[in-house]
């Protein structure tokens, strides 16, 4: 990383340079895919109040990745296998899925999360990796993303988006209003299981960029920011994806030039957007614009 070209104020030239290195191209591809899928799934996750489950699925992917490294296979498999496995466990253990038994659900989820972190550290120390290995799994890294990895991300993103597109409206109905949706024949229980699986895949994807611990940067923050700006569901979903994309692209460029960890950039930019949105809300509220205050 010593050969980083300096940042110039010729922005077009800078962007051209970014695309010259295959590792940067792969990082941009992977980041774009992850931003889209994580932010959209995150939009539903915030609506369904399942952020704790989402975070835990990401934390679970940490022992997944370290176990894969210990076994000498690609970390990608570990991310997906563990996150999807944990999603299935949640689906079996908390039948109501949403709202009904939330205290019990959070106890189950918290238990799994603690065990997952501990196991991750065990696997890391068993594989005699240095602390940097653990760090990039926990806090993210965009270096050395292979073309195979990008292909896996593209396939899983396509799968998640296809399923989400199909179930989007009934899922929104079941999330906002489960009793009425149930009476209307919407398979509320099945949808909550399917959603947990999609959340597992999205968490596994996002963990590979932001790391397991900073997953909220892409899963929660874009949705929470968009929610501040509009209460129209369609508009807010589109805004969510746009925010995630801009944050991811900017972070990759920043990391390229200043070598600070990507996880920090993604998180702080997303956080900045959120604070700005809240501030904007307060300001428009003070000015009394429209009837949409708060």
């Amino acid at each position, binding site marked *: 990383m010593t050969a980083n070209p300096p940042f110039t104020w010729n922005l077009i030239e800078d962007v051209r340079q970014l695309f010259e290195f295959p590792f940067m191209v792969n990082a941009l591809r992977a980041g774009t895919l992850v931003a889209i899928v994580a932010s959209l799934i995150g939009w539903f996750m915030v*609506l369904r109040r399942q952020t704790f489950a989402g975070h835990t699925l990401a934390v679970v992917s940490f022992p997944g990745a370290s176990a894969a490294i210990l076994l000498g296979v690609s970390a990608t498999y570990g991310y997906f296998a563990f996150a999807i496995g944990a999603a299935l466990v949640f689906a079996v253990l908390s039948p109501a899925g949403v709202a009904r038994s939330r205290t019990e659900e959070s106890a189950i989820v918290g238990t799994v999360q603690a065990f997952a972190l501990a196991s991750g550290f065990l696997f890391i120390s068993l594989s005699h990796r240095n602390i940097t290995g653990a760090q990039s799994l926990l806090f993210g890294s965009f270096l050395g993303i292979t073309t195979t990895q990008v292909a896996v991300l593209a396939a899983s993103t396509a799968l998640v988006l296809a399923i989400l597109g199909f*179930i989007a409206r*009934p899922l*929104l*109905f079941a999330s*906002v209003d489960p009793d*009425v949706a149930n009476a209307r024949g919407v398979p509320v229980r099945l949808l909550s299981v399917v959603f947990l699986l999609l959340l597992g895949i999205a968490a596994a994807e996002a963990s590979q960029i932001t790391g397991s611990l900073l997953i909220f940067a892409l899963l929660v923050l874009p949705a929470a920011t968009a929610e501040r700006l509009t209460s129209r569901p369609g508009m807010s979903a589109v805004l969510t994806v746009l925010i995630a994309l801009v944050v991811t692209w900017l972070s990759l460029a920043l990391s390229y030039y200043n070598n600070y960890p990507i996880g920090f950039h993604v998180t702080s930019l997303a956080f900045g957007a959120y604070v700005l949105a809240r501030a904007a809300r307060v300001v428009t509220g003070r000015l009394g614009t429209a009837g949409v205050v*708060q």
Partner: protein
Amino acid sequence: MNSSETGTQDVGAETPAVVFRHASARWGNRVIWEDVNAEVGRGEFVAILGPNGVGKSTLVKAVLGLFPLSSGEVLVFGEEPGEANPRIGYLPQRRHFDPGVRIRGIDVVRLGFDGDSWGFPLPGLSRFSRRHRDADARVRAVIEMVGATGYAGRPIGQISGGEQQRLLIAQALVREPDLLILDEPLDSLDLPNQAAAAALLASVSKEAGVTILMVAHNVNPILSYLDRVIYLAKGGVASGTPEEVITQETLTRLYGTPIEVFRTSDGHLVVVGQPEAPHGDVHAHMVRQ
């Protein structure tokens, strides 16, 4: 009435909206209610009354096919429960949207219209598709009908309980159902809002010819509009017109404890001594004669 006269295939206009015949429900070994016989005619405004915990909500869930009977039968427009659900608008027992829910009221009503169809709507589709324009118009019309136009564009978590309830009534009505089932819709509304919501439901029932089956704990705000009551209590079930059911004899038998029904000088019925009232408080039901 014997079952050969009203076969399950009879779905003509004369079929009652809901019929219970010797219907019983159990939760494990516990009998919730048994031998319920009642009929809800087309276009009637009917209340299911009774103290807490006697299975009023279970009764409407049986109508929706969400709770299976242990014996007997319930027919909805002559069909098995569940079959007729597309013709039913349902407003479940009080649910709040907490202040964090940032979905507009109009979106919640819209979900009642087409929330059960797969896929997702493309933004701006209503500009090109007649079906989408009609759906938009229907949603706006029903919101106008319940008088919620002024706040339907605000996040539903940010409006008052009474306003939320109006939008939920709009949601239940948006598909122009033949039967509207409401579970304690007036609970947790303040008195003026209770009266307003009751008047709204009565006018919907009369003008649109919608049959209304409503679970109520406090009968006062609706009693003057009711065509029929189904009274559930620990001691059994009675159904009929309010004048038939709300009598000293019937209520005393249902509750298994002496109940007195008085007629006031201005023609109201007053029921005194219902045991569900906490700490012996007097709980009064009144009916205009």
